[in-house]
């Protein structure tokens, strides 16, 4: 687990992850900042996956060095307004005994 790994091992993981995901940070201090986020996300993943009663697995992916705010700003864009739900139809209204 992340807690059992030393900093160097996690950094090696991160370097490999950067290559696999085609990412490259040139900004001053940007890579270090991203590495810290990566470590936090890795910890969250491994804590979750260590629960024997979990119903789902978490894992590293291309979002793994983004903060929650960055992820939400870039990848979620659904807008929901009650006025858009005014055309409720009976077509798929479930009735007892439907086959």
């Amino acid at each position: 687990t992340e807690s059992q790994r030393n900093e160097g091992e996690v950094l090696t993981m991160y370097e490999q992850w950067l290559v696999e995901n085609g990412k490259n940070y040139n900004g001053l201090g940007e890579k270090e900042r991203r590495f810290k986020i990566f470590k936090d996300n890795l910890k969250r993943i491994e804590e979750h996956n260590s629960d024997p009663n979990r119903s789902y697995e978490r894992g590293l992916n291309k979002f793994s060095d983004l903060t929650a705010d960055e992820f939400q700003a870039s990848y979620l864009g659904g807008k929901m307004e009650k006025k858009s739900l005014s055309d409720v139809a009976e077509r798929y209204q479930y009735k007892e005994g439907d086959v």
Partner: protein
Amino acid sequence: LPDEVDWRERGAVVPRVKRQGECGSCWAFAATGAVEGINQITTGELVSLSEQELIDCDRGNDNFGCAGGGAVWAFEFIKENGGIVSDEVYGYTGEDTAACKAIEMKTTRVVTINGHEVVPVNDEMSLKKAVAYQPISVMISAANMSDYKSGVYKGACSNLWGDHNVLIVGYGTSSDEGDYWLIRNSWGPEWGEGGYLRLQRNFHEPTGKCAVAVAPVYPIKSNSSSHLLSPSVFKLVVLFVFQLISLALL
């Protein structure tokens, strides 16, 4: 109702899981996915449709390109616009320039719909019935799903309000993890189960897990109103006309 539905097995889902990139265009992908599905169900032809047309051209309602939107308004746009072109001719760039190029697309190949309707809200049984008939666009609360990898998601999320537009393409029951909705996402095939999410179904709140039953919408398309001049339909029509002419000449 069937115990399991998977529209992928019936050819109503484009096999390649699409990738929205760093653009809040989930609504466009949910919309095209739903229209691709109902078009295949009514015409038998699966055509991958253009999200970029929606991003660039659907700017008048409540859709704002990469800044977000909803499939419900995209359906309205597609109906008013007289259809939507394929992504073969209007490919995805993920760029939000609002420069609509659809008018330059010299093609008669558009997929049309007659409009859209809303599934009775906060009712997972009605949603189940709807999914048994066609893929359904829904909003889910997905802020905590960035690192989902596999299994039936039962983690933290808002059960009242969705922030991400996705497409339900089926449902089923896992022996270990219980009932689930099969959801097609637009974060590429590397995310989740090959680009798909299984989300807890038959939740104890009427809104559904992660608000899945709060805003379910679908496009409607009747057989008779198809304006799809697809190559196979076109060939059949041409063959038929030629045969009629041949018979007349004989």
